[in-house]
């Protein structure tokens, strides 16, 4: 009894010390995230021009967000880019990680650096690079390549066509994030005990079967985490879109973050911009929960 009391006293001290050490981080989060978030929620119910008085307008900003076609389209474009790029990055990232796991050795190390390099590049640099690749007419690298291969009929104005511009942006965003997903998945794969693979080999399993029945189920928690991360990144896409299309032409690649900045800084409607931000936040939450629900299942201990 006395021993348990002593132990609970020690635990309490550890908890208090832990909380004390967390304090600086909490203060930083409070100032940079929580207070702006609360301010943003408040602002989304108000009308404010960035100077002067703030007036409460109730749900008007939210109603305007859903009834204005341009805003609605911008939010939907963000959802599209978020979902497609997340799918691309997760599928590509996991496949690359499997390939790396299979190769290993020195060649694996080189491949790891190569495949991870897109994640290290700044978005603006990538945006400019791909603007040259996807440029219209023969000036674009892709179109020039298609022309040289005799596939001129496939040449396209990739960044000024409603049917392709969002796909191009989503693919680039997904490809860029795939390097990080690859590293996370690969690290998770390295933690799987070798004995499991030895047993599988004794049963005559090839690599495909090992991947499907051992590796993928065991790295599922990591993939779930990666999915949430990439969804958040992709929804916030601003720099890539701005460098490549500035949201145009004719708003066909306009995303929620660009719309928010325009609404706030160009139209002086900070309350409306805050409402767009809140709607985007809720949508990101829904997408993350849906993604995690789809990937739900048992977690294995090993």
């Amino acid at each position, binding site marked *: 009894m006395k021993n348990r009391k002593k132990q609970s006293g020690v635990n309490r001290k550890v908890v208090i*010390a832990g909380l004390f*050490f967390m304090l600086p981080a909490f203060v930083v989060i409070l100032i940079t995230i929580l207070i702006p978030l609360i301010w943003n929620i408040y602002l989304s119910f108000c009308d404010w021009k*960035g100077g002067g008085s703030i007036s409460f307008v109730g749900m008007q900003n939210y109603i305007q967000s859903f009834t204005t076609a341009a805003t609605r389209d911008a939010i939907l474009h963000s959802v599209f880019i978020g979902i497609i790029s997340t799918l691309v990055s997760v599928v590509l990232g996991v496949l690359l990680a499997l390939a790396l796991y299979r190769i290993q050795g020195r060649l694996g190390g080189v491949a790891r650096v190569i495949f991870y390099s897109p994640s290290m590049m700044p978005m603006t640099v990538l945006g400019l690079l791909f603007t040259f690749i996807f440029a*219209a*007419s023969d000036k674009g690298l892709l179109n020039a390549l298609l022309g040289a291969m005799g596939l001129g009929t496939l040449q396209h*104005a990739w960044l*000024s066509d409603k049917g392709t511009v969002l796909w191009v942006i989503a693919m680039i965003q997904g490809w860029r994030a795939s390097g990080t997903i690859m590293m996370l998945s690969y690290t998770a794969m390295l933690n799987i005990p070798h004995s499991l693979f030895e047993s599988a080999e004794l049963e005559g399993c090839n690599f495909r079967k090992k991947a499907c029945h051992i590796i993928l189920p065991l790295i599922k928690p990591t993939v779930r985490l990666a999915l949430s991360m990439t969804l958040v990144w992709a929804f916030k896409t601003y720099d890539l879109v701005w460098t490549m299309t500035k949201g145009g032409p004719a708003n066909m690649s306009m995303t929620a973050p660009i719309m928010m900045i325009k609404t706030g*800084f160009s*139209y002086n409607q900070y309350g409306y911009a805050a409402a767009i931000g809140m709607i985007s936040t809720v949508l990101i939450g829904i997408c993350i929960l849906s993604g995690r629900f789809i990937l739900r299942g048992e977690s294995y201990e090993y």
Partner: protein
Amino acid sequence: MKKKALSILLCSIMAFGCLAGCGDSAQKKETEKNTAETEAETAAKEETEAAKTKAGGPELTLMITNSTDPWAETVKEMVEKKFPDYSLTFKNWDEPTVEQTVKTAFAADQAMDVVMYWPTYMKKFEGTGIPMDLTEYMEADTEWKEGFTDGILEVGKTKEGLLAIPNTTNYPMLQVNKKLFEDAGVEFKDVMTWDEFMAACEKIKASGKTPVAVQQEWAGWFVRNALLQCWDNKEELDSFIAGEVPFTDERVKNAMDNIADMYNSDYVYPGGKEAVTTSADDAMAAFINGDAAIFCNVVANAQSVSEKVGDRFELGVISWPSMAKTDDMNNLLGSAGGYMIMSNTKYPDEAVEILKYLTGTEVLQAMADQGSIVANKNVTSDDANYQLYSRDADKVYPDEVINLSSEIFDNLVYNEPANYLFNGESALDELEALREAAAAK
């Protein structure tokens, strides 16, 4: 025991670190407490004076030059030389981000004391409290006021007062490759009607060259200019500018169709609808390399393009093609370049002194010598190009429908004609909804 001592030490360091950050404000609070009896105005004055003495002179931040402007360095040097006692910080002016920079700085209570901004578009700042009203300063200095070109000061006025002072007049014009005109059998004329322009484009296209090169940010000029010319008389135009005529009006639609025809006929580099996404570099390269015969430009940049072309081919200047039915409706879109002062400046008088110098004869003469068309009566230039580029200055119409609201501005300046090309008449419905919203306000 050692662990305990170490943890106490670490906690103390951390607590000290946290409190150190607050130390300054605590100290400040103490000072504020001691000076609480002082009047607010006196305190502000003292603070200003203290700041002046600390740096040996007033500290001002100026965002008055864009590194790509041909006169940027000259103007910077002139200001530094004129105000040696001021501590001046120059920030580069960047068109896409200037509004964000100014508004963010204002929200953080930091002042960009003098900022380059178009007086024509100051309505975008209405209600924000950001620009300082310069009416009193202007009325108090007759010499300064009388130096400006007649009527030009009106462009910087809104219902909140005189918010910006103009320094230059800028409007679009066409620079042409005379050799390509000749090869295509097109007669070179200083002024062209829209039909003549389209006929010339057809001939140039038939000769194997692209008729027009225009960068995406300036494609909207075709629309804005057409909306100044498509009316029967000035009264109708003014009603449209005041938001009393719908965007779905047949004349607006016809004007948009004319522009859509130009794109759909592959007259604009590189051809097709993707021509609305041509970058500035691509448009310029197409013209300089002789792939495109006509380059859409502004008078302020005409000189620099002329220098880039050099001896490659003979350059000609054509006025913007006119859709006007009568000569008196051959209006031209244009804006006045200029400066504003942010209302949160600590040094309003000093900022105004700099503004007076920037819009005075000395600086504007230097700018005119480098090709700018300036808004000052006392500036003269013998340069033949200056006369050539400034010949349409009197056609510039002082107002445009883009000033109805920020949303209409954004839509017409950055989204058209792309929106009409891709979405047809629904683009006009979109504009009409914005006009109704602006009218309701």
